[in-house]
């Protein structure tokens, strides 16, 4: 599309402005993490590294981070399996109710988190409790996986649509069984889509607070829950900013790696 120079300039400006809007609040977070004021009043009354020290010494942060990572990995693993299965079924077969399957998979992300949260909470309590299974990390993983399936499903579906079945057919013609074909042909084709979907699933789980509130048991504290609790604790609010600031910086690494590994996404 031939865009005039002003149009190109305008679009680039829009991009720059958009990125500025995205990063100014993050800069505020970063600045507040060294703000001497305990309730991050503006402008900062002074700069201090006290909160970074407090966050470093806080085992609560480390535990919460670890809990979040475990919940995220668990939910992502389930989402990868279920999402891939569903995508294969929908893309490779024609059957009655095919459209409905898509709808059912999308529903958990399309319905407000509070609805999913109270529905799952209600179900866990009535179904699991008689078996002596209480709310815990397991229920958090189940809750998160429910709305994470869709990210994997969509990425895999898009990839399947683009690749077609010719390579797999060729593999079968050359005598490979379905399992061999999957291992040597289908899976390598899928890898970057799985990575992209899995990363998004992990990110969704990592910052989920509403569903977590309703599905976590005693002592199960994911990072967002820890942040929620500590915003309301005397003297703890600034430490929360440190954690967020550290996360912003640290998140670039996994995203960059994932982007590199899936570099064939979008390479036309």
């Amino acid at each position, binding site marked *: 599309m031939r865009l005039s120079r002003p149009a190109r300039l305008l679009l680039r400006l829009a991009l720059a402005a958009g990125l500025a809007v995205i990063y100014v609040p993050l800069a505020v977070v970063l600045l507040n993490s060294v703000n001497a*004021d305990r309730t991050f009043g503006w402008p900062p009354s002074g700069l201090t590294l006290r909160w970074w020290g407090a966050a470093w010494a*806080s085992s*609560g942060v480390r535990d919460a981070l670890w809990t979040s990572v475990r919940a995220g990995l668990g939910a992502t693993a389930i989402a990868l399996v279920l999402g891939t299965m569903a995508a294969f079924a929908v893309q490779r077969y024609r059957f009655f109710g095919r459209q409905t399957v898509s709808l059912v998979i999308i529903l958990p992300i399309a319905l407000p988190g509070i609805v999913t949260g109270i529905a799952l909470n209600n179900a866990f309590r009535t179904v699991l*409790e008689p078996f002596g299974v209480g709310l815990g990390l397991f229920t958090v993983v189940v809750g998160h996986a429910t709305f994470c399936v869709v990210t994997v499903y969509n990425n895999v579906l898009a990839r399947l649509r683009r690749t077609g079945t010719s390579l797999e057919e060729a593999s079968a013609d050359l005598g490979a069984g379905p399992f061999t074909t999957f291992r040597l042909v289908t899976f390598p084709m899928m890898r970057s889509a799985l990575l992209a979907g899995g990363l998004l699933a992990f990110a969704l789980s990592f910052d989920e607070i509403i569903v977590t509130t309703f599905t976590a048991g005693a002592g199960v504290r994911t990072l967002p829950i820890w942040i929620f609790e500590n915003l309301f*604790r*005397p003297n703890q609010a600034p430490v929360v900013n440190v954690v967020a600031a550290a996360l912003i910086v640290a998140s670039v690494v996994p995203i960059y790696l994932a982007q590199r590994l899936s570099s064939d996404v979008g390479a036309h």
Partner: protein
Amino acid sequence: MRRIGTAFAAAALALATACGGSTPTQPGAPAPGQSGFVPPALQAQRAVGTGEGQVNLVAWAGYVEDGSNDPKVDWVTPFEQETGCQVNTKVAGTSDEMVTLMRTGQYDAVSASGDASLRLIAAGTVAPVNTSLIPNYADVFDGLKSKPWNSVNGVPYGVPHGRGANLLMWRTDTVKPAPDSWSVVFDPNSPYKGKVTAYDSPIYIADAAVYLMATKPDLGIKNPYALDDKQFQAAVDLLKQQKQIIGEYWSDYTKEIQAFKSGDSVVGTTWQVIVNVAKSEQAPVEAVLPKEGATGWSDTWMVAAKAAHPNCAYRWLDWIISPTANAQVAEYFGEAPSNAKACAETADPKHCETFHATDETYFSKVHYWTTPIAQCLDGRTDVTCKDYAKWTRAWTEIKG
């Protein structure tokens, strides 16, 4: 085992302990000041046995600190070392959340405020507490024992954690003269329009009722938590009118301090601890217990009726009101301790003075949060009062 409640056990209990067992209560007109309802017949524990190795708590932020947030703030680790009970905590943001969490049956004990405690008792979620199994109970201020929010007909349902009043805070640079009455937050022509703040919870309706008790005596409000149709409507109308001058409602500590520091709010309800932090951050604020009196809270540690770890729960109840732990938590959270001996243990020797811990006249003006129920808490039997579900609906309507 604790809930078997056979006739024999009940009888033995009534004989064996002075104040521990739950006497099966009979329907009938309750004595004034009593809660006016019949709780499910549950038995209090008779003895504290071997610890179960862990205990699950629902608590306010800052009540159960194990050093994981700040290594210097820790009264859980010594408890775990002494009793072998591993503490798992779920922090609740509101009383309503506490009730919901306790209903799940996953927790052994809860630090319930008075706007949650009666709901828990009425639903049978929590059991009576045998205070004779809690040695430190003896040192709790008398002004906190056997109150309508922590006991029913003289049967205690928990141990008091601490107390505080919902004060009136203002910015000294903008609000002049210094207010001594709630009228400053209810005046529709307030010069502070758009900068008034109020607590964001249905229980705030009681604050309006306290004000009406003083300004509209003909409504006949005796207890701000026992409102009949007419009294309730008057309070709701007052709050709807107040909404016009409200800038924002607050529900968390950080938000309120920020608002007063920045000047987004200049006058409204507060807690003593918020005043202290705001002052330490050089915000020009003062607070007062207005002449009409105020609402307040006195939290109660209660034990779940279906507690999976009741022995550890009882040990926790004794621990949290022990002089040292009670002093630590009262200072960290910012409230008056419940144990009289705690005043000698606080790091700040003036802590009890700042928080009026021993000042019973001060607290006599405080109407502690109590759950409104249909049976009027002031003893009236000829009318029905508005229960908390109705308060909640009304609160939605007030905020609009």
